[in-house]
């Protein structure tokens, strides 16, 4: 493998991976959660950034396991809420808040359970339902599940703040907060629903479709700065783009991967870069910076607003169609890439071939 990719094999399929972010410096720790194993685990990894190592050492620096923790059920989502606390959800319908104790707090780095919300998701017959996603907005947390239920939690309380029991008759597959009082969910049939959380009615504010073919939604995000710009990945590998200011009809649908999009993420600091990974083992980098720059040169941004020309290339169907630059970050692997996370110029991804790969020196 090239110098830019470091892989490490584990003995479990990796469902989710997230960096423990540090402010202003490269992260050196990430967390993975496994799925589909007889005994699943949360694993804390150490992967030193380049600056701390000699060039020569760096070539041999593979991600190392620092701490393992048994986990009941598949890890279905991992989400950091502060720089050392993260939420994790399971296929047994449980949500937990963990704290990473570093070496200043404990003899060796480890994970500590802070809050457990048991039985967040379940079926009427009592069988446990998988919790399929977590959305966070500051202290507020929403969880969704196969049971079609939405739970609202607060990081400060072990009690559920609110439960919408029959939010969806199909299973919910993805969610994100649009505003602090607005939640977006997507289900197995590609129905997207916006929930106004101030309303006490257990009904969505609006409903729209991912595509006409009733393809399931697999992941959904909004643009880091322009929150009205929403992107969703589908089971068919396509990306759907909406501008929720105008209407709920998609601006563009881009055929991307040939199988379902597992995750998608804008670069947190450089939102002109988008990353996607898929079930057919691809991980792609979508670069729109050249388009953004061109349009900025062509017309002053205030002018374009007046002229109704969209500055963000995602909202301009023709640009998205013709001039999007897409790169594969590594050759496709034979198994699904389930999850990835970005940290400055590095990306870590976890796959069903029981490996994690760190891709360095992203071309931003």
């Amino acid at each position, binding site marked *: *493998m090239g110098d*830019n990719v470091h892989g490490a094999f584990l003995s479990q399929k990796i469902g989710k991976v997230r960096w423990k972010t540090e402010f202003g410096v490269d992260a050196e720790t990430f967390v993975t959660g496994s799925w589909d194993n007889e005994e699943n685990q949360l694993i804390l990894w150490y992967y030193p950034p380049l600056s701390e190592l000699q060039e020569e050492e760096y070539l041999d620096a593979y991600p190392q396991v620092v701490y393992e923790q048994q986990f009941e059920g598949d890890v279905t989502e991992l989400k950091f809420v502060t720089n050392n606390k993260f939420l994790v959800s399971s296929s047994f319908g449980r949500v937990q808040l963990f704290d990473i104790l570093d070496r200043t707090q404990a003899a060796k780095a480890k994970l500590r359970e802070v809050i457990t919300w048991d039985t967040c998701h379940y079926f009427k017959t009592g069988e446990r339902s998988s919790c399929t996603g977590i959305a966070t907005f500051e202290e507020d947390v929403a969880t969704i599940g196969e049971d079609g239920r939405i739970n609202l939690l607060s990081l400060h309380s072990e009690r559920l703040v609110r439960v919408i029991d029959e939010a969806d008759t199909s299973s919910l597959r993805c969610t994100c907060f649009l505003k602090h009082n607005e939640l977006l969910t997507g289900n197995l049939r590609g129905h997207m629903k916006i929930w106004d959380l101030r309303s006490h009615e257990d009904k969505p504010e609006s409903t729209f479709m991912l595509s006409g073919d009733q393809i399931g939604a697999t992941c959904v995000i909004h643009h880091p700065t322009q929150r009205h710009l929403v992107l969703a990945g589908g089971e068919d590998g396509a990306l759907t783009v909406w501008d929720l200011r105008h209407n709920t009809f998609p601006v*563009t649908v881009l055929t991307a991967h040939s199988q379902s999009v597992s995750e998608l993420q804008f670069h947190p600091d450089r939102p002109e870069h988008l990353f996607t990974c898929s079930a057919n083992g691809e991980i792609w980098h979508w670069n729109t910076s050249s388009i953004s720059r061109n349009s900025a040169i062509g017309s002053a941004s205030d002018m374009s607003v007046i002229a109704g020309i969209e500055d963000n290339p995602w909202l301009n169907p023709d640009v998205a*169609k*013709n001039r*999007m630059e*897409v790169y594969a970050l590594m050759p496709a692997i034979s198994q699904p890439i389930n999850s990835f996370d970005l940290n400055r110029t590095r990306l870590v991804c976890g796959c069903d071939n029981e490996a994690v790969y760190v891709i360095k020196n992203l071309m931003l």
Partner: protein
Amino acid sequence: MLFEAHSINAEHKDLIHDVAYDFYGQRMATCSSDQFVKVWDQDEHETWNLTATWKAHSGSVWKVTWAHPEFGQVLATCSFDRTAAVWEEIVGEGTAPGERGMRHWVRRTNLVDSRTSVTDVKFGPKALGLLLATCSADGVIRIYEAPDVMNLSQWTLQHELSSKLSLSCLTWNPSFSRQHPPMLAVGSDEANQSLGSKVLIYEYNENSRRWAKTDSVPGVTDAVHDISFAPNLGRSFHMLAIATKDVRILTMKPRQDVVVQSGQPRFDIQTVAQFEDHYCTVWRVSWNVTGTILASSGDDGCVRLWKCNQMNSWKCVSVLKGDGTQACTISGAPTAQGTTSSAQTSSSAPSRKFAESAIEKSAPLTSMWQPAVIKGRFTKRTWIGAEPAPPPSAIDKSKSYARK
């Protein structure tokens, strides 16, 4: 072959006549002379829990079998009491979040057409719909159908075929297509050799809409106790295992040129394996999921596993037998556990795989290798280019994507 085992006390107070596993091997149904049927479910920790037990018949329950899960959670049983029954599981709602609802099995139908003991019951291949075949000691094969697969309380007796031989076992051919019409085979435990073949083949004729006997297996004149078609892995022929005075594996190649009515044999039947290793009567045969290993149980108290090698010859690869001397040490735990949990639900002790004494784990490993004295040099630096995936050319893919 190496096995990991979970032993459970089945809580029947007598010998188990039959054990059936569901499609996935996650649920187990047992039946016994106590007239009860019990259902066991495996949880995430691979612990078996008893989830239902009920008195199913007024005689010993001979056999129990699962329908394909496409039809729901459905069982069929047959008994000495001359009936067969179809059961469906009903799950109730829990009263509190996450609390299990009540589960119980409802008798959907009682098939009372037989005048003698019903000796075997089997669901047909799912692509034929929901079919159930029974055979009985008076030699009658009955094929029932649920015309609406979503309604299990309505069954119609579609066909009744008399074989004139006391029947002990039946098997559906799992594969059919235009070349292979629906087919089943029955075996008879009639000991009288002069009555001819004890394995009969029945096929369904699309035109006449009838089942008819199309062939009988030559050379099997002793009592037959069990019979089983192997799963068909795209082969042009069928494979049938027979438990009689020995274990036999037959191949059946349909003859292309034969007209069914002509009375000529429909199949070119060949015995590919015949084993007398049990040195006595063979009672049961069972294929693994891919039809590559056959298990036979004999009156010698042994189970033998037969596997086909590269040269298409079948060899015994394992012998399993009971050992009472070890019982105190290994099955001791479940025994003790069984006595304490006589309540309606019990479970096998959920001890984890690696929590057990490690010596047990290493003991059965038989190795043909000498212990190695490591001589080579094994450090990452001496790797000869091992990498998890082919090297990426840093950025090599630039595409434009068409709008849908």
